[in-house]
């Protein structure tokens, strides 16, 4: 493990978030739920982290910690109030188009139109990514086989099962073979078999030299998959490093409770 750390220190930074702040203005309904007096919710409170090329980085945190918010900023869907993030050298604020070309982004809020078939959507998104017909055919072949989509290629997305929908979403999100893959809770709502297809796929992508960021609140997923992990609590980075650095010799779960207690009580 000492070795791995040495390598990581000379590795190139691929994703770097610096002091990212994001405050949401709450609607009246949300205000009642959040019991907020000010009508503002600080989702990210100066969050910084670094992920290196070729590793799987896990953003770990409880519900509402700000994981999805951070990833949406990386995907340029929303803009940070303060701070900036760079992906493969491109700033999400200044070069959002270049950032979008270099990432494959997946989150549950991104839906595919029920009306279309996976085959049609592949062609559509491939063209939006500026892919040649040849490259597109090759990717379609690869990904449809890998995820078992071939049999459903001509079935409307609306008629697919949750698992198959998720597989199509994953395939569409990485259709352009991006260098950086950003997945938000990729195994949420999936049965163990489908979840394994997804985690195996992420491991395979890492083998191919891709850089990967996943967010999750599932400890076992981090333990199995991630090279480094950042623990987010209340929009702040509570601990960051390789698994041994963060967990020591305890399980990640125990370590997390300690970190959580320390952060929340401020001791």
């Amino acid at each position, binding site marked *: 493990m000492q070795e791995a750390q040495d390598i990581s220190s000379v590795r190139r930074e691929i994703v770097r978030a610096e002091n990212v702040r994001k405050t949401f203005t709450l609607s009246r309904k949300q205000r009642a739920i959040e019991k907020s007096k000010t009508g503002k919710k600080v989702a990210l409170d100066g969050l910084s982290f670094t992920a290196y090329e070729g590793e799987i980085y896990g953003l770990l945190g409880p519900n509402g910690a700000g994981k999805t918010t951070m990833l949406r900023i990386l995907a340029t869907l929303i803009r940070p109030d303060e701070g900036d993030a760079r992906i493969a050298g491109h700033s999400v604020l200044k070069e959002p188009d270049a950032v979008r070309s270099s990432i494959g982004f997946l989150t549950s809020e991104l839906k595919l139109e029920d009306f279309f078939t996976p085959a049609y959507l592949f062609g559509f998104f491939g063209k939006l*990514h500026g892919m040649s017909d040849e490259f597109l055919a090759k990717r379609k072949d690869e990904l449809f086989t890998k995820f078992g989509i071939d049999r459903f290629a001509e079935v409307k997305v609306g008629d697919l099962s949750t698992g198959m929908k998720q597989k199509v979403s994953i395939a569409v999100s990485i259709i352009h073979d991006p260098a950086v893959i950003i997945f938000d809770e990729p195994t949420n709502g999936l049965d163990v078999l489908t979840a394994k297809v997804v985690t195996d796929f992420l491991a395979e992508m890492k083998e191919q030299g891709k850089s990967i960021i996943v967010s999750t609140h599932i400890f076992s997923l981090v333990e199995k998959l991630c090279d480094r992990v950042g623990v987010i609590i209340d929009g702040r980075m509570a601990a960051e490093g390789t698994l041994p650095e963060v967990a020591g010799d305890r399980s990640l779960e125990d370590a997390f409770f300690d970190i959580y207690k320390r952060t929340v009580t401020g001791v």
Partner: protein
Amino acid sequence: MSNILTIIRKEFARFFKDKRLVIGTLILPGVLIFVLYTLLGSVFYDSNETYSAKVVHPSSVFAAVADPEGEESSFAFTEIGEDGIDSAKEEIRSGSLDLLIVFPENFDALLTEGEFSPVGGAPNVEIWYDSSSVSSSSAFSAVSAILDVLEDQASNRFDVNISAGGDLTSAEQAEASYYAMLLPFLILTFLYSGCMGIAPESIAGEKERGTIATLLVTPIKRSQLVIGKIVSLSVISSLSAISSFIGTFLSMPRLMGGSIGSALGSYSVGQYFALFAVMISAVLIIVSLISIISSYAKSVKEAASLSVPLMIVVMLVGISTMLFTTSAPAAFLIPVYNCVQVMAQIFSLQFSWVSLVITLVSNLVYIVLLVFLLTKMFKSEKVIFNQ
């Protein structure tokens, strides 16, 4: 550019492969309008109907007015004797006869030599009819109108349009000015309702369902997405309007008489070109406006209800030509209104290039501004993610 085409192709695929949408937007409007107008037409206006009337002591003066020689008559008169009165009344009750007219004997002589008499004392023309029958009561109104004229003439203090005078318009102009009032209104209404059927679904619907976010994480520029949407929505709205227009075209003659076809035949190629350009700019403006409302709205439903006030404004502007027309150049700077006025000018054969150019140039500026605004909205997370 290729991204814009990709978006347009997808929007077309979404629309044309969906039978429900194609039928609801392209086929039903035209068919409904045709059926509705034809039904209305057969109730309110029937140029081919002839009324059947039985006449006792027929009057040649009356017949000359009601049944002029060389023209198609709307009456079929049958002469009967006084003994036929009761059976004729029975025929009216049963609906097989429209009218029974009983003239006094020597009615024609009375018309020329008659003296003034107090009401009730003068010779009386009896008209028997059935007010619950549409054809019988219209026959009654027609005959009473003729008799009113005859009664006025009998006193003959003065005539109106008897020895001279008349309508100086050519038939072409009359028809043209008639359609000049109606067509801009119909065109605007058809375009607006066509667009209302698809734009909220395509923009607010994609927001609601989360499919637009999937597009926004691809490298496509927001402006390309906006232009692709507006172009495809404009084409489909126009097709929908054309469908409604065909329905109108086919049913109008039955509803109002005349034919749009002969009215349309009187315009030159240049006027058609002008009309085409104005309509395109009208479509683009309307589609942009509804698209902006649709991206602001949180759901398809909200988009539809927010578009209603704008529809009312557009329709009011559409009927403005029936109230007044203008040639002040500044008026052609007002969007939508300028389209209506130029269309009215074209249809009434009083077309001016100056107003066309002002209209097209100012609309182009508005369209660019609206597209720019829509792009801004698509870039704003407050607009796109405001669920």
